[in-house]
């Protein structure tokens, strides 16, 4: 393998880690003002993005491979994950900037955690070995556990953090057990190369696949937890609702991106030879997520909780793309990228409406928002319509993409379940819109003071709205690009 690439293969992670070290050292040494944090974090994320872009341009095609004894893959898949996760982390920081700045000296830790989470997420996408994948998963998850309880001023935030930690640790253990069983069946934890899992599965007829299938099932469960697919979603509503408003957006968006990146590589590239075994399971998970997420979202009275259940449903839509196997990876990325931006935008609005430290965001807070803050309401409406899949928004293009992939793979029943859930989903998205535009605030209801929107949040909302509209009206260039974002 090309030796000069060895360090460049993990260059994005190095850039992020260096930024974290620098940030913390500068913080304790000089105790600078908040803008210095922004400079360091921005430099780290920009470097990570640029390095991912370089990887994309130079190595998405043929001369890609694995490095560090098959631990890290450099391919279009990993590069795209970087191109998505690092800017997303940047947007997440902007969205949460007021929260971070209000935390005094701990703000630097907040930013460091976001950067570490981004590095972990990219590692999950770039890992070419289950051990490395697990390390990425843990770096990513641990950062998010802390972020979920960062403000530590409300019991439910502590509860959210603890719940997230306990269930997340449990899921990590399940995942690890799956890794062990797959290792037992195939004799390797490495994905590619001679003697790697993909190689072994492609070349060997396994007469007693019990251990392998059990391992596969446990891997699926562990990762399904991370992406909050039903029936492994129970943590999501409490965590999304309990976590500080400013954090939830990044938490929701990044968890989806990282989890699905890992899932897609493991399923399509590593276990591609066993597609007949996992595709039905993924289809069932997808259908369950879509139905459960939608039905439970309908009865919610809290917008953050509602968005949490809707994210369960969206996990189902994204899984729908994966039943098409390798052919659906590009569609999955499209949905994932656009959804991540939408959910970040929606939670940014929620943080503005109910406060960026607050956990709950009851519908009453949203009453008459169309009058109090027309721009916020308009942005939220756009995000909700996109999530509902109304045409001319990126959400519609994404839904068409994943449905098309699933029908192509012969899963028409899944698509019919999904479109019916889409309709039911309109009901709760419209409830929020009704509250914002059609309802007036109840008499005597204590509304939060007029929504405060920082410049960072404004930027995030502008970017989210622009991306949602542009990729809704002309999704083709992005879809074309994403066809290259395949794992090795």
């Amino acid at each position, binding site marked *: 393998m090309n030796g000069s690439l060895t360090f460049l293969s993990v260059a994005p992670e190095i850039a992020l880690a260096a930024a974290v*070290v620098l940030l*913390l050292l500068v*913080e304790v040494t000089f105790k600078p003002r908040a803008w210095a944090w922004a400079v360091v974090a921005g430099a780290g994320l920009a470097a990570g993005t640029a390095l991912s872009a370089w990887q994309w341009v130079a190595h998405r095609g043929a001369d890609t491979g694995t490095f560090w004894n098959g631990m890290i893959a450099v391919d279009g898949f990993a590069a795209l994950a970087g191109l998505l996760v690092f800017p997303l982390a940047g947007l997440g920081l902007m969205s949460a900037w007021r929260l971070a700045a209000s*935390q*005094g*000296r701990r703000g630097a830790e907040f930013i460091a955690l976001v950067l570490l989470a981004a590095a972990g997420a990219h590692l999950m996408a770039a890992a070419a070995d289950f051990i490395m994948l697990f390390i990425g998963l843990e770096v990513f998850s641990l950062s998010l556990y802390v972020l979920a309880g960062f403000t530590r*001023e409300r019991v439910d935030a502590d509860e959210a953090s603890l719940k997230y930690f306990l269930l997340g640790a449990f899921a990590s253990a399940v995942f690890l057990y799956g890794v062990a069983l797959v290792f037992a069946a195939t*004799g390797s934890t490495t994905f590619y190369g001679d003697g790697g899992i993909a190689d072994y599965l492609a070349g060997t007829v396994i007469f007693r696949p019990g251990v392998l299938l059990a391992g596969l099932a446990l891997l699926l469960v562990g990762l399904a937890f991370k992406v909050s697919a039903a029936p492994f979603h129970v943590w999501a509503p409490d965590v999304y609702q309990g976590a500080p408003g400013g954090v939830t957006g990044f938490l929701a968006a990044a968890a989806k991106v990282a989890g699905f990146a890992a899932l897609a590589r493991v399923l399509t590239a590593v276990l591609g030879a066993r597609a007949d075994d996992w595709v039905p399971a993924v289809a069932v998970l997808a259908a369950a997520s879509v139905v459960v997420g939608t039905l439970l979202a309908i009865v919610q009275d809290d917008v953050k909780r509602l968005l949490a259940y809707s994210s369960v449903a969206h996990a189902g839509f994204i899984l729908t793309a994966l039943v098409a196997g390798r052919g659906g990876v590009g569609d999955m990325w499209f949905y994932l990228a656009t959804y991540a931006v939408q959910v970040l935008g929606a939670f940014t609005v929620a943080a503005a409406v109910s406060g960026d430290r607050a956990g709950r965001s009851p519908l009453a807070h949203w009453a008459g928002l169309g009058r109090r803050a027309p721009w916020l309401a308009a942005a939220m409406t756009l995000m909700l319509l996109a999530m509902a899949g109304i045409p001319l928004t990126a959400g519609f293009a994404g839904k068409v993409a994943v449905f098309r992939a699933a029908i192509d793979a012969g899963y028409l029943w899944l698509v019919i379940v999904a479109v019916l859930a889409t309709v039911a989903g309109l009901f709760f998205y419209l409830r929020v819109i009704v509250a914002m535009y059609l309802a007036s605030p109840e008499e005597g209801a204590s509304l939060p003071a007029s929504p405060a929107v920082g410049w960072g949040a404004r930027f995030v909302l502008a970017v989210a709205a622009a991306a949602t509209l542009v990729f809704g009206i002309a999704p083709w260039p992005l879809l074309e690009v994403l066809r290259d974002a395949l794992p090795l």
Partner: protein
Amino acid sequence: MPQTDLSAYLPIALMFVLVVGFSVVSLFLARLVAPRHPTPEKVEPYECGIVPLQEPVQRFPVKFYLVAMLYVIFDIEIVFLFAWAASFDDLGWYGLAAVGLFTFLLIETLVYVWRRGALDWNLPRRRRYQRAGAAAGDAERTAA
């Protein structure tokens, strides 16, 4: 490759069985063989006869946990250093650089923790490390 020769693990398995077996056997044997004549004095926690005033399980100050956690970090470092030292000649400069980087990251952590006042046991003095305003809530939370 997949068909690993498990016989290499046999000594370890034997050792495992031996250890478990020995401890179980000796515990049970002691119970069976030892004479037992309980009197009220004998079942007291302290043989000298002092009546215990409080439950033996107590709450530790949170700072002990902090120290314990920091200790774990350095303990892990020792694990790595041992492995590195054992194959120092093979790894050469590359190994030195890698361990140097690793150690640097640990020291950086230590510096951060130190400058944030986590190593200072004296609560009022720790406040010096923090800026006014945010510091108050911060210290409360740390103390809680």
